[in-house]
């Protein structure tokens, strides 16, 4: 088996997992398992949220490569698919070439749900969370609209503002301004409930969950860096909320 193809397959699998919001330990484990199943010795893999290093020994030669993953999104479907491919390859169900081609296909895949459905989901999440936080039926629609605005602005601002945290800050600011506007027009609505609902689409749930799992698996660097990422998001949303609240006084 050629060591180049093994290296390419492993790195592709690892970078797909890392790019789409998978845990670091899953990245390392998947790469190591594929390399071992392909018959490589002395396999070592290391991943942080921004880079992957893989090295193994093949017929007396050492091979090491590193790739960087500059952008990160969340697409759990791709992680599930890669998991499936690696499991089938390790189990002997498919050959290495087939695995590599499938991984290329997975990498090119578009998100599972269309854009409008994602925005609708953000609106639903915001609306129902506002009700769970103690809102009335009247608060449902404004918070759903505020959540929609937040999600839309995250998507469109990201193209202009290259910084993730400033994008989140501005999106939170816009959502809060909408809440303020709605409450000024209809004073019987609860601004607190609407803001709580609107900020929900920015809750860094996946970063927190992954950082915990990484810490538990012993990846201290990866866990801490993901935790800091989650905290920065939380702080930028909190500051935006504080600014909105100071307008209200």
């Amino acid at each position: 088996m050629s060591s180049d193809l093994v290296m390419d397959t492993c790195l592709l699998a690892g970078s797909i997992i890392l790019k789409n919001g998978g845990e670091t330990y899953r990245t390392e484990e998947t790469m190591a398992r594929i390399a071992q199943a392909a018959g490589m010795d002395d396999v070592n893999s290391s991943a942080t949220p921004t880079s992957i290093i893989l090295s193994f020994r093949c017929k007396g030669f050492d091979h090491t490569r590193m790739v960087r993953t500059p952008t990160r999104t969340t697409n759990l479907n791709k992680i599930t698919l890669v998991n499936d491919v690696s499991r089938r390859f390790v189990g002997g169900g498919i050959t290495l070439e087939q695995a590599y081609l499938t991984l290329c296909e997975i990498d090119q895949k578009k998100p599972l749900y269309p854009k409008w459905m994602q925005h609708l989901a953000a609106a639903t999440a915001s609306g129902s969370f506002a009700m769970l936080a103690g809102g009335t039926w009247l608060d449902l629609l404004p918070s759903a609209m505020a959540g929609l605005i937040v999600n839309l602005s995250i998507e469109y601002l990201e193209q202009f503002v290259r910084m993730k945290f400033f994008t989140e800050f501005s999106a939170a600011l816009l959502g809060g301004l909408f809440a303020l506007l709605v409450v000024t027009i209809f004073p019987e609505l609860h601004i607190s409930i609407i803001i709580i609902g609107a900020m929900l689409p920015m809750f860094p749930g996946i970063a927190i969950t992954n950082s915990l799992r990484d810490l538990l698996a012993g990846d201290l660097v990866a866990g801490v860096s993901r935790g800091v990422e989650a905290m920065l998001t939380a702080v930028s949303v909190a500051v935006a909320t504080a600014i909105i609240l100071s307008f209200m006084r």
Partner: protein
Amino acid sequence: MLLGLALSFMSSMAWCVLFNVPVRTILAGGIAGMVGYIVYSLLPLLNAEVLLSTFVSAAIVSLLSQFMSIYLRVPSTNFSVAGIIPLVPGSLAYKSMLAFVNNDYVEGITLATKTMMVAGAIASGLIFGISVVTIVKGARYAGKRAQ
């Protein structure tokens, strides 16, 4: 109560869509969120503190997602991220921000600490669920080696 169930189910499913989970696991994610919310809202009736009920419900969500991940053969992150959403301390965080803006720093720090504690309870609940499954797996492995 019934309304809360429907709402937690809806919001967890919406999060599943936001995170692009596979179609066949959306329903399971919604169920994870709903079960978490049921536990979270039932425990205070038994005089449980907020921290305890958050911890227990996060642990149950985590355990449930582990079992569903084994059953459906997908990574457990698919369920747990959506399942913990109804437990997020949104109103506490908001109140603490409000206190900071009103220059009531003592109240703000009190509420912020409370928020952190609840977030920590969610985190430790998740860790608890993961650890239990790891222990079971490890015990099985040890049992196999002993034979």
